[in-house]
């Protein structure tokens, strides 16, 4: 047996002993300490009134979670069940808040301040008697009445995605609990403030970001995506421009290329990619990555000013709209060395 095998066996045996020790723990006693009722905030609930019943039926059909607590049920019951006149035509506040995306900038609920996370914004929109938005992790929607500064939110439902770290889910729950409890709404200096018992939510209006056009835009590559790892881009500005004649031109950071594309429902089919030029050794891997992604079918996603192309295997390229005077999009340390970064649940790793 080699030293490596011996070490491996030793580690395996130690973990095995731990596993055996843990099985000696009195599981039934531990289970007995649990309240078998699912806790507040995630129970399927019985909603009151015809409007609430419709919400439940819709939720069952589309596979989303409907939740809340007794307080939520009271809000729904105390609101207008007819569903015909949610919102008030001609109400100045309603007109002011409708059509904008409101982003939560600070908030507190019965359990204290909400710990907001830049990576998981909380948003709120008003439209046709409904509120909707992103609650840190999941999308949500519900009914709203807003009359003369009095607001009632009920029938909240959300999608079922799980997010990590757990604090994101806790923020989501705290926010939705708070939103279900608001009673007053006021606009102060362009900020929307919703308040209720032990609840205050303050939103700012988010400027809408125009969505760039895929064709005819000068795109500047700033990130290479390899599985979970994002890598910064080196070398010359690596551009990409798709023409309306189904050809494209661009660069890898060291070589220039041309090619043809066809639009498909989910993205592009790229053909006839031809690259010319030479790459130094430190740019060869980047060059190979760009060329490999731009070969065959790629998914296209445009989020505002950002374009992400993803190949079948999951590798991708992420571009931003070039302002016409592009600088190399590299991330440099103080000594000028270019670095890469990755992000996982432990945070940002350089």
């Amino acid at each position: 047996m080699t030293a490596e095998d011996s070490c491996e066996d030793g580690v395996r045996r130690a973990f095995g002993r731990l596993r055996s020790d843990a099985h000696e723990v009195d599981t039934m006693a531990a289970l007995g300490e649990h309240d078998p009722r699912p806790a507040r905030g995630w129970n399927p609930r019985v909603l009151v009134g015809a409007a609430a019943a419709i919400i439940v039926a819709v939720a069952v059909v589309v596979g989303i979670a409907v939740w809340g607590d007794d307080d939520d049920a009271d809000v729904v019951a105390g609101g207008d069940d007819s569903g015909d006149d949610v919102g008030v035509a001609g109400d100045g506040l309603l007109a002011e808040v409708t059509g904008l995306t409101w982003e939560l900038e600070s908030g507190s609920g019965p359990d204290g301040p909400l710990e907001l996370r830049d990576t998981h914004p909380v948003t709120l929109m008003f439209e046709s008697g409904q509120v909707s938005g992103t609650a840190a992790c999941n999308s949500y929607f519900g009914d709203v009445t807003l009359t003369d500064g009095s607001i009632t939110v009920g029938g909240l439902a959300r999608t079922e995605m799980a997010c990590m770290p757990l604090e994101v889910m806790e923020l989501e729950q705290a926010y939705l609990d708070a939103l279900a409890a608001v009673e007053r709404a006021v606009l102060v200096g362009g900020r929307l403030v919703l308040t209720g018992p032990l609840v205050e939510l303050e939103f700012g209006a988010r400027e809408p970001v125009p969505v760039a056009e895929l064709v005819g835009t000068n795109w500047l590559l700033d990130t290479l995506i390899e599985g979970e790892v994002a890598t910064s881009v080196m070398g010359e500005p690596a551009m990409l421009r798709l023409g309306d004649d189904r050809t494209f031109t661009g660069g890898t950071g060291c070589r220039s290329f041309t090619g043809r594309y066809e639009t498909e429902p989910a993205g592009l089919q790229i053909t006839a990619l031809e690259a010319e030029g030479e790459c130094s050794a430190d740019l060869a891997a980047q060059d190979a990555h760009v060329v490999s992604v731009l070969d065959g079918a790629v998914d296209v996603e445009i989020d505002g000013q950002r374009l992400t192309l993803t190949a079948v295997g999951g590798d991708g390229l992420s571009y931003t709209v070039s302002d016409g005077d592009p600088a190399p999009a590299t991330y440099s340390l103080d000594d000028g060395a270019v670095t890469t970064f990755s992000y996982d649940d432990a945070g940002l790793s350089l």
Partner: protein
Amino acid sequence: MAPEHQAVRDLPTFEALFVVEYPKMVALAAAVSGSRSHAEDIAQEAMTRLNRHWSLVQGYDKPGAWLRRVTVNLALSQKRRLVSEARAALRLGARRREPQLAPAPVEDELLWTAVAALPRQQRAVLSLHFLEDLPLEEIADILDISPSTARVHLHRARQTLREQLSPTEVDR
């Protein structure tokens, strides 16, 4: 019976999952946190959160993966001391059970010291690998990292343990 009725009937109950998973979460919490005395509190807290989110999690393909991720996060979190204290406070009036997980055998102490000194992610990957024999893809899924990253963490953890532990110290 219609397929959807079959699916509903086959959903695990919280109690059934608890009985199967609790000892595993105690072991996982002990390995990842490095603390046998806190392991049961961490596992209990993970189970409490599972209970709180049960209506959501029970519909997942792998509720166990969700539970493991929460357990690992709690075990890695510096909040575990606060969790333990909060749970103790909640038990006011109730008799606090003494931890039942036996202390580590003397022959394993050096190994657990070396494991506790590993970087957080390496400890998590190593524990899931050796405790549960999970494939790297599943470990990666639990920890929300790529399989290649999980592979690197496992490789580095093994390398460190090999460097720190002589064969005679672990091969007994």
